[in-house]
Each structure stands twice: as C-alpha cells, then as structure tokens.
C-alpha cells in the first residue's frame, strides 16, 4: 500500500510542477530560517563549547541597591569586593569566579592602533570555562595573585596583531599597559567568554576596584552538579538580604540574583532586576509562540494549496472510497503524501541552513560566530518538518475525508 501511496505522490507532484515548486520553496525557506534561528539560540543557551559547563554554573551580573523609602535606586554590575567578600565564602558553590565585562581598549602594535575588547579575570574564571588553548597557557593562580602582566589572546586577535609569527612571548600594549602574551585560545562568541584579550584582574591600574560594591564585574558560580543550582540561587538571595553597604544610611536594601544564561537574557528583556523570577518562562513561551506563528502562516498557505490539490483529486477519492478505503485510510494517505513533500523540503531547508550558517560565519557579520547544525538542531528541524507536514496535511485531508463517495465521484467537491 505504501508503494502505491509513493507512486501516486510522486506522480501528483511531478504532474503539477508549479504547485510543487511553490510548496517546496515555502517549506524550504521557512525551515531554513527556523533552523538558523534554532542553531543560534542553541549556541546562546545550550551548554556547548567554552561554556560546556553552563548547566552547572550561574552568573550574578547585577546589583540593585535601594535607599529607605526607595527614594533612590542604583542598579549596576557588581564590584569586586562584593564577589570577594560575600559570594566567594558561599557554602553551596564549588568555585566562584570574578570577571569584568569586555571593555574596549586601544592596542598599540607597531604603528597601528586597534580597538579591542579586554576582560580582567581571576584564576577561577579559567577553571570554570573550558577555553581551548591553541598556544602557550592561561594565567595561573600565581599569575593572578602576583599581579603579573600576562595576557591571553584569541586566535583571530593573535593572527591580526602578530601575523606569521607565534604570539606567545610577544609584548602587548593595551590601554597604556604592557603585557606579555602567554597564551592563545580559540575564538568564541558566548556570553561569558566573548573577548579579544584577557588579563589578570590584579593588573587593574588602580587597586580601588577591591573596595567597591558596585563595579564592572560579574560572578560565575560553579556547582558540583546541576541539581545544586536552586540551592545557589537561594543562597545568593540570602546573601543579598544580609548585604552590608559601607554607608547603610544611603543603601539599606540589596537585591541580586543568580541567573542561568536564559534568565540573564530574560532579565535584560523584561527588566526584572527587582524580581526573583527573571521571566525566562515567558521568554521561552514567546519564542515558541513566535516560531509557531512563523510556521503557521506558510502552513495556512499550504493548507489552502493542498485543499485545492486534494479536491482536484475528488474522482480518485470517490474511487478509493467505493472500493473500500475508509476516511481514516485516506487521511493517512494524504498526510503521508504531504509529510513526504515536507521531509524533502526539510532536507533542502537543512542544506540551505548549513549554507546560510556557513556564510554567516565566514562573512564576519557576527564576529567569532561558530555555529554548526549538530544532531540536536537537525532533529529539532526534523520535528519541525514533521509538524509542518502534519499541520498542512491533516486539515485538507480531514476536509476531504468527509466527502461522500457519490459526491466525490461526481466531482462535487
């Protein structure tokens, strides 16, 4: 029976080439966009690459301080003192890292000046994140403790600043400070690891950062295992409640949250710095809703096209019913036909998505972007394709199945 379905499907699709072309284009483009978006989202949120342990760590990025009566409110990144004195001693964490946001610095090399991104990090940062070291090494605890002027570059920066020679051992003048390059790591474009240059936090030109509650840092908190994360979140909220500002008269209430990467983006989107719930659930629902909406429009178009196509075959429907096909059997036949077309469109969409992502990586439009259609994304694409096939096939098939054999034979559809 399946062979009969396949032959009929093949004949129908080759007989109506324009219809098939429109159908395939519609499916291919939609799936390509969905797969590219899914791959980018996966790159951002799924534990992978340098941030492969992100299912075990949380980040504290923002401190909210309020005066009594909420007359004044200050919201900003954490100071080093807050991380060092309040977060490091936490019981539920395995490791706490302090790292600055990437700051733009001028790098002088020969007679050129480049504007590059620089992060200042402690030694734990290199333990929590899984940088792939291509050359040399990353700063040790001793390097950080001693305040050694050592730097790590990413591969693109190393190639740009020191073309044709090994970057390790070279001098680097960044933001008026001179560092010795001790290592080169692979390029990365992920939330906590994106940068061109990394130097020890202790090389900051001023030691003032050590005594600040507000500053330019965020903390990464690593748990023993993912199940520990809620404990860390509860302990961070507790730490915030007991936080003592240097001037308690000015600030008497502090709020801060240990967030997953998803929470971090949701907080930025919904401005929920004052609430424990970041709105990540809502954000996921919105993303899912948008994806469904994005699929729904072409699916409705396909439903329309398919209805016309199926009703054109009313004589065939009548014959099949007359010779014993039940409505259910016919629905299955038409859905199979549609799913086959969608799977073929899905395959084309997959190829187009791989080509689009490869172009996106090579174009430099998004620096350091490295995204692959991996198995998870492929199967997500496959699921999307099947959903598409069902969405656009079931409705016309169901409509068709309600036809009475006599009506169908008369072509009164």
């Amino acid at each position, binding site marked *: 029976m399946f062979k009969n379905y396949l032959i009929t499907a093949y004949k129908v699709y080759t007989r109506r080439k324009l219809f098939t072309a429109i159908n395939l284009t519609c499916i291919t483009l939609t799936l390509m966009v969905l797969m590219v978006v899914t791959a980018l989202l996966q790159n951002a949120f799924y534990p992978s690459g340098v941030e492969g342990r992100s299912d075990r760590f949380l980040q504290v990025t923002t401190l909210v301080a309020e005066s009594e009566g909420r007359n004044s409110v200050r919201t900003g990144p954490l100071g080093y003192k807050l991380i060092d004195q309040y977060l490091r001693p936490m019981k539920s964490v395995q490791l706490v890292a302090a790292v600055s946001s990437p700051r733009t610095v001028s790098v002088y090399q020969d007679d050129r000046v480049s504007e590059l991104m620089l992060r200042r990090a402690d030694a734990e940062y290199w333990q929590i994140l899984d940088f792939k070291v291509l050359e040399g090494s990353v700063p040790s605890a001793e390097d950080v403790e001693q305040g050694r002027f050592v730097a790590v570059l990413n591969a693109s920066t190393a190639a740009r600043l020191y073309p044709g020679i090994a970057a390790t051992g070279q001098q680097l003048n960044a933001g008026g400070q001179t560092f010795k390059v001790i290592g080169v790591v692979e390029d990365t474009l992920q939330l906590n690891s994106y940068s061109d240059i990394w130097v020890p936090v202790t090389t900051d030109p001023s030691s003032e950062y050590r005594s600040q509650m507000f500053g330019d840092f965020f903390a990464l908190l690593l748990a023993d295992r993912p199940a520990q994360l809620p404990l860390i979140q509860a302990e961070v909220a507790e730490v915030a409640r007991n936080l003592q500002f240097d001037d308690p008269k000015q600030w008497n209430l502090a709020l801060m949250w240990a967030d997953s990467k998803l929470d971090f983006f949701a907080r930025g989107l919904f401005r929920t710095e004052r609430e424990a719930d970041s709105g990540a659930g809502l954000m996921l629902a919105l993303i899912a809703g948008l994806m469904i909406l994005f699929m729904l429009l072409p699916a409705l178009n396909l439903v329309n096209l398919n209805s016309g196509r199926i009703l054109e075959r009313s004589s065939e429907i009548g*014959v099949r*019913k007359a*010779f*014993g*096909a*039940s409505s259910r059997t016919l629905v299955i036949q038409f859905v199979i036909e549609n799913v086959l077309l969608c799977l073929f469109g899905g395959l084309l969409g997959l190829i187009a998505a791989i080509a689009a992502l490869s172009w996106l990586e090579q174009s430099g439009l998004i620096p350091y972007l490295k995204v692959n259609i991996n198995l998870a994304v492929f199967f997500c694409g496959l699921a999307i394709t099947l959903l598409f096939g069902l969405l656009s096939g079931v409705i016309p098939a169901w409509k068709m199945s309600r036809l*009475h*054999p*006599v009506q169908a*034979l008369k072509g009164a559809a």
Partner: protein
Amino acid sequence: MIRLENISKTYQTDKVETLALKDINLHVPKGEFLSIMGPSGCGKSTLLNLIGLLDQPGAGTISVDGAAVKSYRDKDVARLRNQTFGFIFQSFHLINDLQVIDNVELPLLYRSLAAGERRRRAREALERVGLGARMEHYPNQLSGGQQQRVAIARAIVGRPQVLLADEPTGNLDSQMGGEVMDLLLRLNAEGTTVVMVTHDEREAKRGSKIVRVFDGQLVN
C-alpha cells in the same frame, strides 16, 4: 442477496427538496443479472448507489446477505463495500497517475493481503479481461473499450459477490459496448450477481430481469 425495503431518498439543495426515490422495494437474488432502466433523472443511478452503499437512504432498510445495514459508520460501510461489491462506472474513473496493474490492484490494498498475492490476483484479473499485455500501460494510453475492461478487472479483482455497473457501455461504441456486455454476462454465468443501469433496451434484455424507474418509483 440484496433487499431494499421502503427506501426513500431526497436531496436538499438550497431551499428546494427533491424527491429522488420513493418507497422502493426491491429484491436482488444471488446470481441475478438485473437491469435498471428509466429516463434520465428518474433516479436509476441513485438506486444503484444505494444498493452499493455509496449513498445513504433517507428512509427504509437495505439488507445485504440477510443482514440489515444498520450503521452507516464510515469504517463499517467501507469494509462491506470492499468485501461485497465491485463497481463499474460509465466514465471508468481510473486513476491516470497509476499503471493499469496498480489501478486493478487498488481494491486489494484495503484488505490484509501480501503484496505478492495482490499482484498475482491483479494480473489474473487483467488476463481474464484480455489485457494481460497492457499491465504496465497508463489508462490514457488505452482505448475507451480497453479502459472499461480495466475498470471491470478492478471491479472483479476482489472477487465480489455483486457487480454494480452504471451505464458501463455508455461511453463506448457498439462493438466495444458489445464486448463489455459479453464480459458481464460471462461473469454472471460464473455466479456473480450483476446490477446494471442502462438506457439500452437491447442490453437490458440480455440480463435476467428488468426493473423500470419512473419519477423515483419502480413501475411494472
């Protein structure tokens, strides 16, 4: 074999109600060749469709092999149609996208039969109607008479007890029409019950019984 009791059928179109059949009582015994005659629009095809369970009566009972068709549930009626009836239509209704052999095999797709057995039976049916050499042709590569013979092969491939033919020679010239009639008579002689709608008095007389329909009613 088939019994119709007090069958009525009306069609509702917009605000007009058309009475297609009224108080039909008919018995088709096993092995009969029944010809249904009557002017255009009198309800002959409606009657044939009701006998073949392609349509549902407004009132009355249809019994097949002594069992009344109580439920017109899609699945049940589909099974009954598949097991009991074979249909031959005036305009053949072959699926042009499928080869002749695939068209003939179609009724067997809806039975639990192995692919090899289905193929064997389809070949056998085509050989019976003299089209063993045309199995891999497509319907539009055949003449009208050949297409109707393919349709007959499709109708008999499932070895149905009853063949229902709606003006089977209506689209054929007299020679081809004659061949198709010979085939139907041969099948009837082998024990298949045949119910045929026709306009042609000569063809009708070749059967064993004639009923006439006029204005939706059977007339003597």
